[in-house]
């Protein structure tokens, strides 16, 4: 699932780096979420300096390459700005996750643009699809050809990094009339098996496009069988669920589970119920970049804290 560079020679160093960093303390983790809108990434820098074994990864979401409507006629430009921010980070993140809607209409040219821009970050990227990525004539073949290597079913998979278990889920296929996002039985059985036998103290990060918890069912913002997935993760001391789809930051802590959604890099969407529909929200030009952005997630060893820091492109 790493698409930054398929050349084996280029992948080696990052793998070695992962091994070097695999010194997670293995204790239960109490999550602290630092949300809001910090002006810089200084918090992460200073924390990393104090905690040499801490690591960060980045989340980007909803690039919507090909989108050119009034809410943002230049989604390519704002993705470039987001990647520019990633490149400018003083401490290089371990990797990036992309929580879907890479493209707007699943066109090859849109995936090409995303690849060209995102690869400039020179980071491994782990993708899951959004519903916009599976609307080619063959319903997802283009996505799977590009991003699906080593995945199961519609593109789900898991991997370990720095002692943390990452699980990428697909909840945008086979949606039922009147319903929400959907994982389906096959994927859920895979998930149950995937986490079986793992130590309850291992931190878990789940990422998927549509929020796994019910944000606003009237707009379809939730996952029909998300609760069953979370049931399989009950025993774990710390679970972080990262989603996109709703193009705004939202978070909730429930027991050991932290839910968090990231901004889009393309266009904002309204707060639940604040508009007639969840469609792209047109804001004044000088406000747009304050509503687009990226998220950094930091694990700190020993301090038993995880911080998610959302950074807008501007403001």
């Amino acid at each position, binding site marked *: 699932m790493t698409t930054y560079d398929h050349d084996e020679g280029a992948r080696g160093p990052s793998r070695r780096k992962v091994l070097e960093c695999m010194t997670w303390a293995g204790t239960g983790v109490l999550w602290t979420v630092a949300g809001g809108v910090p002006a810089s990434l200084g918090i992460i820098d200073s924390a990393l300096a104090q905690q040499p074994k801490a690591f960060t990864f980045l989340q980007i979401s909803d690039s919507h390459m090909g989108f050119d*409507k*009034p*809410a943002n006629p230049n989604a390519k430009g704002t993705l470039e700005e987001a990647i520019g921010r990633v490149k400018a980070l003083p401490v290089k993140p371990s990797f990036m996750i992309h929580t879907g809607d890479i493209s*707007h*209409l*699943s066109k090859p040219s849109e995936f090409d643009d995303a690849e060209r821009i995102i690869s400039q970050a020179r980071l491994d990227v782990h993708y899951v699809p959004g*519903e*916009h990525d599976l*609307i080619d*004539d063959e319903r997802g073949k283009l996505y799977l050809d590009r991003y699906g290597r080593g995945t199961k079913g519609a593109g789900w998979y898991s991997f370990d990094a720095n002692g943390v278990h990452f699980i990428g889920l697909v909840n945008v296929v086979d*949606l*039922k*009339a*009147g*319903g*929400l996002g959907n994982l389906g039985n096959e994927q859920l059985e895979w998930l149950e098996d995937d986490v079986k036998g793992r130590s309850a103290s291992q931190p878990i990060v789940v990422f998927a496009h549509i929020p796994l918890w019910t944000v606003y*069912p*009237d*707009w*379809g913002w939730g996952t029909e069988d998300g609760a069953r997935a979370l049931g399989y993760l009950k025993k774990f001391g710390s679970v972080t669920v990262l989603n996109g789809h709703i193009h705004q930051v939202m978070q909730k802590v429930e027991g050991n589970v932290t839910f968090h959604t990231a901004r889009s890099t393309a266009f904002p969407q309204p707060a639940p119920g604040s508009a*007639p*529909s*969840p*469609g*792209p929200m047109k804001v004044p030009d000088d406000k747009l970049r304050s509503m687009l952005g990226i998220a950094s997630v930091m694990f700190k060893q020993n301090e038993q804290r995880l911080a998610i820091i959302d950074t807008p492109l501007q403001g």
Partner: protein
Amino acid sequence: MNCVAGVAAVLLLAATPAWADDAAIKIGNFTFGPKELKVKSGTTVTWINEDDIPHTVVSPDNFKSKALDSEDKFSFTFTTPGTYKYFCSLHPHMTGTIVVEATTGSIVSP
């Protein structure tokens, strides 16, 4: 039916004599309008997407559009009376119903 066929159907509609039934459904603000539509058998219904987000029109086993970008259209001609429930497979909270009634004079008791 694909988009090209959809467009062809629309062109066909334009060329059909005025007595032919047709009906339009607008997709806007993530809703089908009207949400419920009653038509006579033989009617061609055309959906047009007026949102800035793609949608689909899907009635399992009956009809299925491709993803409709903004301003794209999809048409389907209903020839069999009955109730057709459909939804957007990308945003499944969007649902609608077409009720197709038999054309007067063509009701044949089995």
